[in-house]
């Protein structure tokens, strides 16, 4: 079976259409991961052992179990407890929760790199804890972690094909549908692979660029 160019051209629009959903899922999933991860990181800072260990336990469990099973779990169990949302939204939520466990670690490392003196200085100036966190600590902690967050974004992008298993019509799902219908899997699957390769290579280059920028600035 040889590569068929006209067939490839014919299916390209369908696959590109799937790419829109792939990118949508990635961006929304990452936004959720960024917010929720910061929430976990904040909980880990609180001076309460019980909160600390339960937060650790939750994030550890999320990181040590397969995303695929987490997807299945939510896809099948959410409707049982009365939550009926579109599959895409379920997918985005699970992606976001899954990656929040990783972004939490990144935030934590970034926060730990802020010297104690900064907290002390803010206290000496009579800032509230909330003000200290949002106006003094975070603005210093965020820039150095941008590259690590970028790597998480790429990793999440590469995990979006899993959403095809819960009927989300992203790129891989469309490729498989084409394959099932025409019995030609080579072209659609290869094209999806190449599209992923192009985007992640470009994104990696961009991260490398920002990383050098940040290193220069410090």
């Amino acid at each position: 079976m040889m590569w068929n160019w006209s067939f490839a051209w014919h299916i390209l629009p369908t696959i590109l259409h799937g790419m829109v959903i792939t990118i949508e899922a990635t961006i929304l999933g990452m936004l959720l991961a960024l917010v929720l991860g910061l929430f976990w990181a904040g909980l880990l800072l609180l001076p309460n052992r019980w909160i600390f260990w339960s937060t650790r336990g939750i994030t550890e469990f999320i990181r040590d179990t397969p995303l695929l099973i987490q997807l299945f779990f939510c896809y099948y169990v959410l409707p049982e407890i009365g939550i009926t949302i579109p599959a895409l939204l379920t997918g985005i939520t699970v992606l976001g929760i899954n990656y929040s466990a990783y972004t939490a670690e990144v935030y934590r490392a970034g926060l730990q790199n802020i010297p104690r003196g900064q907290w002390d200085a803010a206290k000496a100036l009579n800032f509230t804890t909330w003000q200290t966190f949002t106006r003094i600590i975070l603005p210093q902690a965020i820039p150095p972690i941008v590259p690590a967050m970028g790597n998480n974004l790429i990793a999440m992008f590469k995990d979006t094909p899993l959403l095809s298993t819960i009927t989300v019509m992203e790129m891989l799902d469309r490729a498989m549908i084409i394959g099932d219908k025409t019995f030609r899997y080579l072209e659609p699957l290869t094209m999806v692979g190449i599209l992923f390769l192009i985007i992640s290579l470009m994104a990696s280059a961009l991260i490398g660029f920002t990383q050098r920028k940040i290193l220069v600035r410090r």
Partner: protein
Amino acid sequence: MLHMLPMMLRGALVTGEVTAGAIVVASVASSCAVAMRLSTLTALDWPARVYIELFRGTSALIQLFWAFYALPLVLPFRPSPIITAIVVLGLNGGAYGAEILRGAILSVPRGQHDAATALNFSATTKVFRVVLPQAWPLILPPMANLFIDMLKNSALAGLVQVTDITFNAQILQESTLRNAEVYGLALVIYFIMALVLAGFMRLLERRMKFPVGARI
């Protein structure tokens, strides 16, 4: 829920097999790739680069589907699902492993290479007695993470007819419709397997330690 356990545990055995097999493939692939990457011959360097970028730049599931659905159309034979899964997941992990190895090997200071040369060590002695023993402590922690990622990635094998935890969970879910129990149990089993693997890697790490000074 108890009656699900035997089937899930049979799946866990297969998951273990796929993961172990993939780890072996990944170890071989990453060792070869890093040796090629660090060789001075560009003819060896660039195929290794292409391999690493290809597998890191695309997604494991796409690689697996490609190998399962598209590759047999160009191959003269059809490998069994479990072999396909082990090879693909192994090559995927190997690409990440190669970067871990490379980073650790390159972080061994130049002075150590100089000392080895000044003592007239052969290239092999230098690699195996000087560079690798010092790279090990830096390799093991990220390798442990990679192996756990590979355990989690092995769940994808269930999507291409390998009868692992995921596959058996899907069958149980369809026949019993007890969604929460089936997938909850699957999550717990994966979690326990990950903890065991992490514990084993930590044991290995502890045995590989030596007192490292700031500057030797």
